[in-house]
């Protein structure tokens, strides 16, 4: 997933700040796919992702004057989107939810898997959503920002406001847990090689 470049944004940001609604519209359209993608991966379902995306876009509009240009605009948007999605997750914690992750920590197979490629893709997506949902939000955010958004460790550290070493650890531990969940590995967690933080 590639975010728009710095040059594409600068003129739009300047124009949007002077009240050019067309420029603001274009700016939001350029970054909305990345914002939604982060929200979708972090929240794990369409409805919450839509709410988080709406919150994020509103925050972007409201905070545009405070964007100082030190980071890439796309990184700034990722930060806002991540916070919006994590806020949505906190709100969702109070709601009951169905999970595909069973008591042993493995992602359960769908009870009635449908045939066909489209159904398989949906199953795959559901399994990923369930596996990501089983990670702590901190690990999930680090993994998504790295593997979906292709941010480097320094950028992720900036987005999450944690040291790069913490980013490295969270990504490693998040991926390791994800690999276990997606593979349905029931091995003793103490035997896994991920070091303690």
């Amino acid at each position, binding site marked *: 997933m590639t975010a728009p470049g710095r040059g594409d944004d600068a003129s739009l940001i300047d124009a949007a700040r002077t009240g050019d*609604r067309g420029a603001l519209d274009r700016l939001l359209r350029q970054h909305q*796919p990345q914002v939604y993608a982060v929200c979708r991966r972090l929240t794990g379902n369409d409805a919450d992702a839509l709410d988080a995306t709406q919150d994020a876009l509103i925050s972007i509009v409201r905070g545009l004057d405070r964007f100082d240009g030190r980071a890439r605009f796309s990184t700034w948007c990722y930060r806002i989107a991540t916070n919006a999605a994590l806020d949505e997750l906190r709100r969702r914690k109070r709601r009951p939810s169905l999970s595909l992750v069973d008591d042993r920590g493995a992602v359960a197979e769908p009870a009635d898997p449908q045939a066909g490629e489209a159904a398989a893709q949906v199953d795959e997506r559901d399994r990923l959503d369930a596996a990501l949902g089983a990670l702590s939000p901190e690990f999930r955010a680090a993994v998504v920002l790295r593997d*979906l958004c292709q941010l480097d460790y320094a950028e992720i550290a900036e987005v999450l406001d944690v040291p790069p070493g913490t980013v490295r650890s969270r990504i490693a531990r998040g991926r390791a847990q994800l690999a276990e969940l997606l593979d349905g590995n029931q091995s003793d967690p103490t035997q896994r090689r991920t070091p303690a933080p």
Partner: protein
Amino acid sequence: MTDTTPSPASDEDLSAAIDGELDDGRARDLLTDPANAARLEQLNRAVRAVAAPVDPLDNTAVDRLIADAIAEPAAPAAPRRAVRGPAPWLVAAAIAVLLAVGLTLVWTGRNGESNDQASTVSTDLDASAANEERAGADASAESSDDAAAAGEVAPDSGHAGSATTDGTSPATTITPTLPSAVDLGTFADGDALRTALATSFPDVAVTSTSDGPSTASVERCATQLEITLGLDDGPTQIGWATIGGQEALVYEFSTSSYEDGTPTTLVTAVGAEACNQIVFFER
């Protein structure tokens, strides 16, 4: 001294090697060591799964999201979908109603009307809120008219719990008994108040520096909040404060979450004169 032994490697090193965040020599050692192959493949499967593209939103949804974001006012709004009752647009419309009613009441007060009249809340306001709910997304535009109408009839309507001027039945009493108000002190802004009340509402007032708001003012804003927020019960706690130089009333309501019906507490501060919302949060 750096340990250059290539295996067995930790997940953290393997993961960093996958990301190119390890120095080239060390990464090459790890990635080419057969002892790490199986684990690398497992981790890479996780990487590929997360990296799979997310299905984009359809154009209609994108148009709506962006239009809503651009149309959103600059001032912070109440939390979305946080409480049972009004939709976000209705909250915005209700704030407009409160502002219009408040300004009208202030205006009437300045023109020689009695304070009792100014503190009156008409049940027509309830009807106004209901009308806005039916009006859908265009409610904010229409709400000004509704608010003006409510403001016009308010002075002639009954005060909550008292008889009307024409001797008919009193208006609906929404806040029959209110708890005593406590002086919460002075705050730089709404965020400072929010921080101070983040966990609980103080039972004991700070050193009082004023006589506090009038009972009529406390009742008027409480009633308006109950109506506009769709609350069944009156406030459980009331205080007053100075927020950013503005005299404010602070209310705490016990209600249930809009999302799942679980008990929740709403805290809101409004301007003491016009009942305009200053801060609103849930805990």
